[in-house]
């Protein structure tokens, strides 16, 4: 499997579109649990990344630099809770990609592990707290195990996204403990966490991108 800087940028482009399409939905989820801005925040952040993709990054071949720009741009554009979280994800992942213009399956795995570990560290949330970590942590676990077993990134990441999906869905049945919705108590039951959802969308979009690269 070969994943180039162009593919990485394509992935980012795809996320831009996915967030635009899901902006209303993410805000709707956040209105139930929080302050209703998650879709707006994701849209602002990814639109800023889009500008970089169309500008500074057009001829960038270093996957590490692409991720650094992505993380920094996102953070500068949005702040918020997810700013530091996703930014940390990309910045930690960037270390794996440093000086590389083409990525192996192993590197991709390491990237996502670093990405997710970074977010967990930054936010300090545990599985069960009803946050994006409920999506990300099981995805990471599956990715590691399955990659160990199969040595195939696509297989492993496909499984990881399935776990992410389950994790996301699990937030419906959780009482929230982190972030703005932690005081909601019972009333947070039944509502899916917006960050868990946007995290799933990112992972899922990566899978789609990888698959379309494979297909070529």
């Amino acid at each position, binding site marked *: 499997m070969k994943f180039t800087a162009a593919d990485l940028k394509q992935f980012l482009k795809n996320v831009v579109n996915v967030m635009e399409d899901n902006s209303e939905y993410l805000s709707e989820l956040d*209105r139930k649990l929080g302050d*209703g*801005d998650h879709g707006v*925040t994701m849209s602002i952040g990814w639109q800023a990344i889009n500008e970089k993709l169309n500008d500074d990054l057009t001829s960038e071949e270093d996957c590490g630099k692409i991720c650094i720009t992505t993380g920094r741009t996102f953070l500068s554009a*949005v702040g918020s809770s997810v*700013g*530091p979280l996703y930014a940390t994800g990309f910045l930690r992942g960037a270390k794996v990609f440093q000086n590389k213009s083409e990525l192996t399956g192993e590197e991709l795995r390491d990237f996502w592990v670093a990405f997710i570990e970074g977010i967990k560290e930054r936010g300090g949330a545990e599985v069960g707290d009803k946050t994006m970590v409920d999506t990300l942590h099981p995805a990471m676990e599956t990715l590691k195990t399955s990659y160990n077993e199969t040595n195939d990134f696509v297989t492993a990441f496909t499984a990881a996204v399935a776990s992410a999906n389950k994790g996301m869905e699990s937030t419906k049945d959780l009482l929230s403990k982190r972030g703005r*919705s*932690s*005081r909601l108590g019972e009333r947070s039951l039944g509502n899916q966490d917006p960050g868990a959802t946007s995290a799933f969308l990112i992972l899922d979009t990566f899978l789609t991108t990888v698959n379309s690269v494979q297909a070529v």
Partner: protein
Amino acid sequence: MKKLINNPTHVVDEMIEGYIKAFPKHVKLLPENKRSIVTAKETLSGKVGVLIGGGSGHEPAFMGYVGDGMADGVAIGNIFASPPPDPILEVTREIDKGAGVVYIYGNYAGDVMNFGMAAELADLEYGINVGAVLVTDDVASAPKEEKEKRRGIAGEFFVTKAAGAAADKGYGLEDVVRVAKKTNDNTRTMGVGLTPCSLPQTGKPSFELEDNEMEIGLGHHGEPGIEKGELQPADQVADRLVEDILADMPIDKGEKVAVLVNGLGSTTQMELYIMFRRVEQILSEKGIEIHRSYVGSYSTSLEMGGCSVTITKLDDELSEFVDHPADCPMYAQR
């Protein structure tokens, strides 16, 4: 919902532009980020810098509280979203006059992370000493046993006021932090929501309430509260809010307090005074002395309807700070 705006994505930048043009003698915009505002008067050398900030949509909080006797600078985020570390850092560098900077912000995941990152960078990259004070006055946002999880709402006004006054009086960083924390520890707020606000980008109401409903403990951004119920007469609402505050922070007969009855956006001053009337009755029945009162829209949630009651217990030190004069574009006290 109708709004007098141009492009929803530019509301914060255009607001800031207007603000700076309206009060050039009071405030100025820093060049790097377009979200960093500091007082137009040079902060005195050796004075502790007071930095406030958070999401937009709470005007006059936070940008309106930059000025003499209050904050030296503010970092402004998108609507209901913490500012990123960059503008916080830019303000920090500008207002540090060798004595360090105290950050005052509400206890929200986003603010904690962004201000936290900025504080780390200020120390690492510029050797600036930063003290952080998280505001946690919202009684409804977590039970007493998990007080440290509580959100910050209107009480941040008193924390800023005390820190600003202490810094003005020449207190050192540790002492300003102490004063701000003491104020926070002695401050409780309970709010009630009647009608929702809407983000300019979504136009959707932030929550739903029936025509005859109110919600106790509703968050500052429309986060669900602790109890929905039928709209009660003002006196009963005031009773409930003050009761919850006093249950959480008992106040003895003879003690002094500052009171803030804060409008969330579209609630009229007439209603706020009617609420204050009852708050005063309750406190005076209990022999609690109101040292100073504030009634008005001090910290809003866009055009949300409803109000909050904040009570801060005062000792002599804090009374002096509450009385300290202030001169900000959106709040002045002589």
